[in-house]
């Protein structure tokens, strides 16, 4: 399903699945005069049946899991998901507690295993809580208006000096010769 279907305004349903309310206040903040996201066509709706996008804040707890599943199925296709905050993206600081299922990925695993549903397009907005501008950036990335800046990085150390007894005892002499090994400079 293509994200190009969301070309004009977006209607958003906000679901708090057990968070501390910090991210909820930031989601409400983007409708206040300083950020005013209604000029970009985004509107909060009261019923999931009217929504295009569902915004999750907070980790999914055991008590809210059935309600989150029902709300997810009530949003009609095509839909998209915005996971706001560190609790929704990865489970948060209590990711291993007995009362918490996890972040949005654990939720998708349950949906695949028991309901055979593939995950919809999702945008992850990390932060604790993310700034209102970061949430606007996330929605813009979802719509394809802005390109995402964050990419994964990988580094593998290529060459290491071989450690012999002589090398380590006369470390300062070798450092001066080879132009210095700048490891752990304060």
């Amino acid at each position, binding site marked *: 399903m293509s994200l190009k279907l969301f070309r004009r305004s977006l209607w958003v349903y906000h*679901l*708090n699945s*057990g968070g501390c309310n910090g991210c*909820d206040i930031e989601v409400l903040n983007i409708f206040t005069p300083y950020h005013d996201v209604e000029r970009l066509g985004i509107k909060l709706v009261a019923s999931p049946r009217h929504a295009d996008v569902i915004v999750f804040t907070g980790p999914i707890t055991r*008590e809210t899991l*059935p309600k989150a599943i029902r709300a997810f199925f009530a949003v009609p296709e095509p839909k998209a998901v915005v996971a706001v905050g560190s609790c929704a993206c990865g489970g948060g600081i*209590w990711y291993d507690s*007995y009362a918490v299922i996890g972040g949005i990925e654990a939720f998708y695993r349950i949906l695949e295993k028991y309901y055979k549903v593939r995950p919809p397009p999702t945008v992850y907005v990390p932060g604790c809580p993310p700034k209102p501008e970061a949430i606007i950036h996330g929605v813009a990335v979802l719509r394809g208006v802005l390109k995402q800046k964050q990419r994964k990085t990988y580094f593998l150390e290529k060459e290491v000096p071989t450690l012999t007894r002589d090398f380590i005892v006369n470390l300062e002499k070798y450092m001066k010769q080879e132009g210095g090994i700048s490891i752990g400079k304060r």
Partner: protein
Amino acid sequence: MPTSIYEVLELMRKYGRIEKIHKDTYIVEVKADKVKDICSILHWKLGGHFSVTVGSDERLINGYFAIYHVFLLDEQKISIIVHTKANPAVPKIPSITPIIPGANWHEREAHDFFGIVFENHPNLERLILPYDWPEKVYPLRKDVSIEELRFKILKPETVKAKAKPEEEYIVPIGPYHPALHEPEYFELYVEGERIVDAKYKGFHVHRGIEKVAEERLTINQIPFIAERICGICGYTHNVAYCQAVEYAANIDVPLRAKYIRSILLEIERIHSHLLWFGVLFHLLGFDTGFMMTWLVREKIMDLAEILTGNRKNYGMNLVGGVRRDINEGKIKLSLETLDHVEYKLRNILSKMLKLKEIMSRTKEIGLLSREEARKLSVVGPVARASGISTDVRKYHPYAAYGELEFKVPVYDAGDVYSRVLVRYDEIFESISMLKQLLKNIPKGDLMAENVEVPEYRKGLGLTEAPRGENIHLVITGRENKVYRWRPRAPSYNNVPSTLVMLKGENLADAPAIIASIDPCFSCTDHVVVVDVKRGTRRTLRLKEISRGRAR
């Protein structure tokens, strides 16, 4: 009537052994049959009030289960903890709910987590744990670990059985939300438009913080999880925990660090009260007020970002002091911001509160008399609006509050309008306190030098959050961890009072009444309305009731 500290302690000595834990805090150890007498004397005769009940599994230390009832005496400026032990095989203790109705939820929670049975409790049902929790499994006992709970005892299949997909495809008729099939927060039983009874079901935000803090986190990592308990008043939890550990370990925090902590606490109070005003105006249908108060609030959030690095979750505390400093430029900027905010609020907010519509929808509504407030042991602005003068900053001073001058606003009417006036006065008191703090901040260190924490010591940390008094009880443990940590937020004591306030009122006034205690679940407030005569049930959002679309 005994009034001095010495006389109170002599009276306590007749019931059991008394010991001083740290400054202004005493613990009395009594046998189980004397608990009701001593609690009744402390709450009703000596002028103290009941604060929290903490259960604890101390079988590894001395072989018993322990219960601590904490009472605060404002006149003598001390706190007294009543400690009893229960038999490990079949733990039973007489309940104090018949004499102090405010202890209802506290005892149910101790029963949920430890399995302690309180004799003569009116309804000892499940309160906090999810509805599909198996019987006889008590999560906070020391013989069950998080791994076992997650993977062996609780299986996700039990959750799946309750959420069948066939139930979801229902065509909505009228204001019915198929996603919120089951009642979440309040069940209101109505006859036509009048509310006759109310019940509360909640606690879906239960995340198991106490067990995570006991098993996995070290003493210096817990301030970060304490901040994320609440999304609006998190810094008070942070300070209360750090104070509890500092008192238990006898660590001396430098004065400059105490001033910085007080500055951030007052900034948080201003932003929380402005947020509350916005939510109240929104529920009364006055969106201009909502937008204008949140506009002024943005200036305070920007100030917090400059001082600490983030708009919320300041992350400034460690046990023993603070992590960052405030320099001269920041002090000057803060004073300018406060002047601007004060000017705006005196012009806008005072005029909005004098509008005829606001006054007629909040006066004489949601009444809570002084006797009911004492019985339920409510705290914070709700108590101050019903004629009880209680404020932790004045009567049990902590951080730098002992050196400041301020007033505690108290009103007598007990309705929603009094609570509005209490919070309005508190904003201006906070601004004046901030000016005193910023101008008189002393020089010094930011962190204490010796931060060693000995094992198995008890500490009690008290702060005044924007919603009321906040209390943390900490028992330190070994290997840099805590043995037991119980944070109690002020809304825990205040929410049961809504069930008293709602009876006999109109349905359209319910949102304003529920919002007037400033509960910490402002964003997903859903209500189920049960019409007793017609036998129908509907689920609505509070916004819809307030705009009259509840038909």
